[in-house]
């Protein structure tokens, strides 16, 4: 019956209760939208990094990531690629020769990472061909063609067919150089590649390096991200002489993005909950003050302070239990709809791409986040109800009935 009284009590002043419920619902809805949006931002960054840069996992010589020198080639690369070819979880892989060097036009120069690629493998893993905004994917010029990013082209003041010179150390440490002609200009969602990645044919690079057996990196794209840890583990146990790293290990900034997203959600939740707490305290204090006589009478007839406390607490929890799910439902409907149609941010394309984000975002929320929001509201309501409940139990029955 205490539950019944508490439930009916919140409807004694329906306008006030509806305002509180609406405040809770709108607050949760707003948080759901914001968190959904932040999730889509970080997800787009991570997806772009996986699809256009790191892939799901990479294989290197154990020394290569610390000292990216030509001599640190992957041992057993043939065996590894054979394994990858026969693993049904693997969608595609790309073997790369990676060299750090300088690129120079007649007007400027810059430090770059040179990717010597197998054309078909790279296309399957990073969709490099689809990123070209000018030129073509090594189809015109049979030898010494190079693909550079729009940003690098601007920096070098290079255009299509401009001759560029690549200078780097060969396998024996001798400085070597080769002239390449721009055959394509790409615009990658990966800031790392946009800043300093250039692509040439593997055989052209090998010729300059003086060997055709080097493989510095094998990038592996999975059918689903969930399979990444298992495949990485299997590779590690099969090929202990190679270093296997997942995208999370390769790119600490991706983890940072995820952490930032979680932190943003936590901060937003705290701000909303504090605002909500003040609203609840105000409402419940009013409810207690308005019912002083009745509370006094209840104490007089033998309702103990614990029950009075519970009753006020229950009223508050009921308010949040109505507002919370309504807010979640509104949030779910809006986030699901936006997740289907997407949010078009093409007006800010330049800025977003510079930081590796997509221009169309698809907000989403996990079940865990919905549960967290409702739990936060209920917990806030309970904490906020403490003071009004305390005020209620501190009433003196006679004074309260006289008031």
């Amino acid at each position, binding site marked *: *019956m*205490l539950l*019944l*009284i508490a439930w*009916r*009590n919140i*409807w*004694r002043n329906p306008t006030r209760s509806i305002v509180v419920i609406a405040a809770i619902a709108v607050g949760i809805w707003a948080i759901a939208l914001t968190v959904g949006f932040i999730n889509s931002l970080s997800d787009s960054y991570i997806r772009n990094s996986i699809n256009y840069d790191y892939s799901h996992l990479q294989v290197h010589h154990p020394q290569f990531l610390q000292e990216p020198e030509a001599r640190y080639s992957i041992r057993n690369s043939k065996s590894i690629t054979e394994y990858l070819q026969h693993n049904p979880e693997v969608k595609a892989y790309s073997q790369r020769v990676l060299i750090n060097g300088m690129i120079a036009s007649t007007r400027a120069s810059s430090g770059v990472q040179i990717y010597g690629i197998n054309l078909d493998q790279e296309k399957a893993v990073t969709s490099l061909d689809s990123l070209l905004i000018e030129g073509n994917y090594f189809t015109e010029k049979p030898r010494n063609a190079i693909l550079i990013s729009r940003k690098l082209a601007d920096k070098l003041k290079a255009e299509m067919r401009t001759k560029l010179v690549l200078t780097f150390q060969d396998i024996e440490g001798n400085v070597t150089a080769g002239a390449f002609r721009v055959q394509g200009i790409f615009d990658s969602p990966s800031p790392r590649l946009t800043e300093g990645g250039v692509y040439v044919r593997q055989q052209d690079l090998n010729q300059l390096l003086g060997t055709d057996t080097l493989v510095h990196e094998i990038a592996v794209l999975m059918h689903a991200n969930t399979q990444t840890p298992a495949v990485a583990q299997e590779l590690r146990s099969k090929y202990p002489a190679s270093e296997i790293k997942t995208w999370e290990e390769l790119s600490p900034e991706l983890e940072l993005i995820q952490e930032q997203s979680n932190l943003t959600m936590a901060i937003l939740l705290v701000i909303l909950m504090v605002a909500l707490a003040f609203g609840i305290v105000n409402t419940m204090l009013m409810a207690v003050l308005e019912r002083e*006589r*009745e509370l006094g*009478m*209840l*104490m*007089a*007839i*033998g*309702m*103990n*302070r614990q*029950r009075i406390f519970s009753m006020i607490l229950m009223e508050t929890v009921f308010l949040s239990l109505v507002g919370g799910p309504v807010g979640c439902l509104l949030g779910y409907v809006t986030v699901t709809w936006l997740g289907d149609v997407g949010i078009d941010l093409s007006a800010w394309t330049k800025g977003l791409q510079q930081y590796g984000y997509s221009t169309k975002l698809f907000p989403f929320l996990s079940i865990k986040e919905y549960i967290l929001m409702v739990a936060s509201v209920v917990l806030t309501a309970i904490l906020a109800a403490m003071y009004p409940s305390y005020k209620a139990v501190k009433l003196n*029955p*006679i004074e309260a*009935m006289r008031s």
Partner: protein
Amino acid sequence: MPEVVIRTSGLTKVYQETKVPVKALGGVDLEIREGEFTAVVGPSGSGKSTLLHIIGGLDYPTQGQVEVGGHHLNELNDRELIDFRLEHIGFVFQAFNLIPVLTAKENVEFIMLLQKLPAKEREARAVQLLQEVGLGDRMHNRPSELSGGQQQRVAVARALASRPQFILADEPTANLDSKAAANLLNMMAEMNQREKATFIFSTHDQRVIEKARRVITLEDGVIVSDVTKA
């Protein structure tokens, strides 16, 4: 002769709410026997309500002793007083007696719920009492749908529901018209006989005083007359 169930000696109450202390009771010695139907009368400020509050365990005396049903109320703490009230006292107040969000029947049941009585027993007793106070057909109405007299009847039924030893009614007819007041008093007298509870009510309504079998008159916090009708 029935035994004495309420005994006060030298009961004094001084309110210190302002700079000037106000003496509400000035040494009341009183004995009330089981089953009495007693009116405490007197003008406003004579100490009627204070006396009832102290006997009912709602307030502590400044001085003096109060023993109700074998309990020395001075010695009970706040929590024990709440339990004492729940088990031994039924209250009827001048107004704001009922929980507005509950029906008449739920109001009567509520006190038994606090006593943790089984649902079936609660319902049967609530229905029986509401029928006895003449509200068998209004038990599903909320207080706002009942007249002042009907609300007081529900309050009496609620006060009796917990089978208390004592019913304390503080100006129960103050907000009622003469007919409703007379009906309520007749009903209370009848319940006094039927339920064997000791009734003490404060009033300054002459029509109510006539119904009482014992009339204690207070003036300025002291008993000036104590008359038991033959």
